[in-house]
């Protein structure tokens, strides 16, 4: 679509309520730094920011300041190995992610994905589970951060038909599986999928199913992977 056709949707996009095809078209234009769309979305972002002025002002609890500031004070005082080790792990995984992700044609979007992945990997509270080391044909590793999201790295994934897609699910201890986005495998049956954003606090497992293109609100097939998070 042309910039002219997308102009009316800049506001909806900036509010996070635009729909396809306009939403993905604008994202595509932004990813390639289209000057007109960048300018238009920036302008709309001003408006969305200004909307914070319609919110009633509420005094936050006094302890919140020390909680926020204390969080980074603790981080800056962490001992040497406490700082280096997570970064070493992240750096290794970053290399893996870079190797898999960057050959594609959307460097800006992929850099953002990489940053999202590193934020998840750097969360000290993230759970990490290696799967498929024994009987399961698919193998890999999953990282689940309650506040930041999920990184799924898989190999030997099953071949799927055209019109089908993999769908990731977060399974809470109680309640139905929560859809966590769709992804496709590479031609070598591997996949690296990053789903930023909070996951249910009582997440007990992560599962992957094969679903019709576009995904399903609830699983329509039996998961070929169920990765338990308990005890990690």
């Amino acid at each position, binding site marked *: 679509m042309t910039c002219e056709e997308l102009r009316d949707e800049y506001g909806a996009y900036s509010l996070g309520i635009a729909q396809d095809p306009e939403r993905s078209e604008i994202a595509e234009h932004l990813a390639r730094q289209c000057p007109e769309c960048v300018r238009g979305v920036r302008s709309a972002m001003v*408006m*969305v920011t200004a909307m914070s*002025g319609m*919110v009633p002002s509420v005094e936050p609890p006094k302890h*919140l300041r020390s909680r926020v*500031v204390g969080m*980074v004070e603790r981080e*800056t005082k962490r001992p040497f190995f406490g700082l280096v080790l997570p970064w070493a792990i992240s750096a290794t995984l970053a290399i893996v992610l870079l190797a898999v992700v960057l050959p594609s044609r959307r460097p800006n979007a992929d850099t953002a994905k990489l940053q999202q992945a590193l934020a998840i990997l*750097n969360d000290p509270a993230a759970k990490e589970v290696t799967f498929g080391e024994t009987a399961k044909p698919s193998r890999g590793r999953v990282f689940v951060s309650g506040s930041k999201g999920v990184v799924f790295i898989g190999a030997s994934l099953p071949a799927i038909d055209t019109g089908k897609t993999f769908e990731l699910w977060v399974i809470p201890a109680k309640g139905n599986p929560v859809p966590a986005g769709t992804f496709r495998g590479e031609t070598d049956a591997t996949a690296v999928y990053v789903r930023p954003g*909070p996951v249910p606090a009582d997440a007990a497992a992560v599962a992957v199913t094969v679903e019709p293109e576009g995904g399903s609100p609830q699983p329509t097939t039996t998961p070929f992977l169920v990765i338990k998070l308990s005890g990690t």
Partner: protein
Amino acid sequence: MSGQNDETLARGLQRKDPAAMADLYDRFGRIAYSVILSIVRDGAAAEDLVQETFLRVWNRAQTFDVERGALGPWLLSIARNRAIDHVRSATARMDRNAFELDAHEHPSLFVDMEREVVNSDHARLIQKAIAKLSQNQREVIQLAYYEGLSQSEMAERMGQPLGTVKTWVRGALKFLRDEIGQAVTA
């Protein structure tokens, strides 16, 4: 809240100086908490999300353009997105579209932006402008801002055709842009 202050503050965050985080909180903690609370309507969740918002700024400060970036608008965008993500998660509306809010937080979208956009004068301006909207336009803006409903979800909620809802959304956003756009754009 001068540009120089923004720049100094951003440089402090890039140096990982906790004093800069304290300054950042003193400047934007109240409005960030207010925005988040207005969306999630739960004090405990709002506190968690404020913490997550400031941590995200802290972790991503290296990507921020200290000379041209607008710190407040960037932080408030992150705050609202965290809150909308939380609400969508709580209502199981975690479809694939929900996770693309992150793209709206990229610091490159907040360069050359008027930094004073979050001050009280502009708050009055937006309140006046929203009061001038029609009832339906005001409702769609509130559903979008506070609940992050997609236009299809609004159509379902309001029992109206999608095309009608899109017309209201476009009309409302155009009106707001015309009313406040010139005043807040650098």
